[in-house]
């Protein structure tokens, strides 16, 4: 026993070293599976606050660029609205019915504006931290969009901050479709260039053209249908030859991301739930 104590006293730094290394390795390997690890990432209050201050300062210098982009986007959207209303008016005679239908799908979603406080693009698994959290009504698995297109899905949430799993992450998996064609597939990113991603599982019999727009499909409740993802640059055969693989140019500029919107779909989920409850209660009465 005495020998053992002597040994420990002399080599205590080795013991400490082994304990610390084991601790860091446990954190390293468990982080990806450990949902409660908000404390060990930039979603915790202290680091979130520091990043928030620094991004406030950075934001100030980026304002001109952001303004330009917004103006451009605004012009583009205005033109689009103009052409679309024109075509609609030509096709439909009943304009009141038309207007009431047009705004229906958007009413189900609440948009929570948020600021990006920390962002990476140079790794294989990138994460984005935003300055809104559980207290602002953000929950896990909500969709996140920017003015230019889809960004990602909320992954971890703390009280005031949350971490987003963006498209630029090997784990990202967003259902999308080719606008106006209806065929759908899954958006993946394989590392490397930050403006290129792939859409897998497009069926072989699908008809589409290069430079067609890829948008979200709306099959899951995460994103509403029609949020822009990007446009098709190349078409490849998948490795098993059963489907097409589309090389897509992403419309979101991830390296220059400041303002994003989190899509709150609880209203829709709630509506579905209450509908369900109503049908159930009627059934009980009938029985």
């Amino acid at each position, binding site marked *: 026993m005495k020998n053992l104590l002597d040994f420990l006293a002399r080599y205590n*730094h080795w013991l*400490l*070293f082994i304990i*610390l*290394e084991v601790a*860091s390795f446990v*954190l390293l390997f468990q982080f990806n599976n450990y949902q409660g690890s908000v404390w060990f990432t930039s979603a915790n209050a202290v680091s979130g606050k520091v990043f928030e201050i620094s991004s406030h300062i950075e934001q100030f210098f980026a304002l001109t660029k952001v303004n330009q982009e917004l103006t451009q986007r605004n012009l583009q959207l205005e033109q689009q609205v103009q052409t679309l209303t024109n075509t609609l008016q030509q096709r439909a005679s009943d304009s009141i019915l038309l207007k009431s239908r047009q705004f229906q799908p958007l009413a189900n979603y609440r948009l929570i504006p948020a600021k990006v406080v920390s962002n990476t693009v*140079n790794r294989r698994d990138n994460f984005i931290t935003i300055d809104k959290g559980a207290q602002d009504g953000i929950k896990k698995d909500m969709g996140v969009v920017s003015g230019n297109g889809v960004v990602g899905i909320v992954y971890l949430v703390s009280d005031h901050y949350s971490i987003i799993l963006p498209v630029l992450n090997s784990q990202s998996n967003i259902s999308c479709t080719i606008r106006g064609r209806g065929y759908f597939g899954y958006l993946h990113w394989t590392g490397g260039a930050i403006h290129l991603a792939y859409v897998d599982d497009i069926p072989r019999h699908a008809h589409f053209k290069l430079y067609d727009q890829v948008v979200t499909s709306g099959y899951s409740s995460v994103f509403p249908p029609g949020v822009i993802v990007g446009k098709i640059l190349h078409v490849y055969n998948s490795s098993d030859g059963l489907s097409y693989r589309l090389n897509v140019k992403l419309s979101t500029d991830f390296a220059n991301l400041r303002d994003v919107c989190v899509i709150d779909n609880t209203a829709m989920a709630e509506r579905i739930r209450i509908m369900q409850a109503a049908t159930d209660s009627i059934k009980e009465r009938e029985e």
Partner: protein
Amino acid sequence: MNNTVTRRILLFVLLILVQVLILNHIHLFGYATPLLYVAFVLKTRRNFPRWAILLISFTLGAIIDLFSNTTGVAMGSLTLIGLIQPPLLEIFVPRDSAEDLEPSMKTLGVNKFIFFTILIVFIFCLCFFTLETFNFFNWIKWLECVGGSTVFTVVLILVLENMRKR
């Protein structure tokens, strides 16, 4: 004594802020990121208690990890540096020098200090990027990251050291 402790704590905070707010965003040629915080462990005095070095380097690594979302990576590799810094320093110190000498260009001599820095930083970058690319191994990218970051960090440390000397 008190003065040195305060200075060390200030340096600790300053290094973290500089690393997190500025240096983490630099990716020269797409791979070279300066990891300046290793300088804090590198400059530890001779005969500083070894358990203290280990705890300090572990804490420093943990804080850096917290800010850059690389849980465990800097923690593990910086703790290793905390272990090997004292024996490595013993090799480089000249004979009959002070018991609590702080490694610098003045105390070690320019050549020895440069060599010491390169060795420590290289081992650190090697560990750091090996741990970081654990599940996605790309030889070329890994070599580029280790090489580029080592050179960048060493140059940065030497430049700062040189400025301080004057």
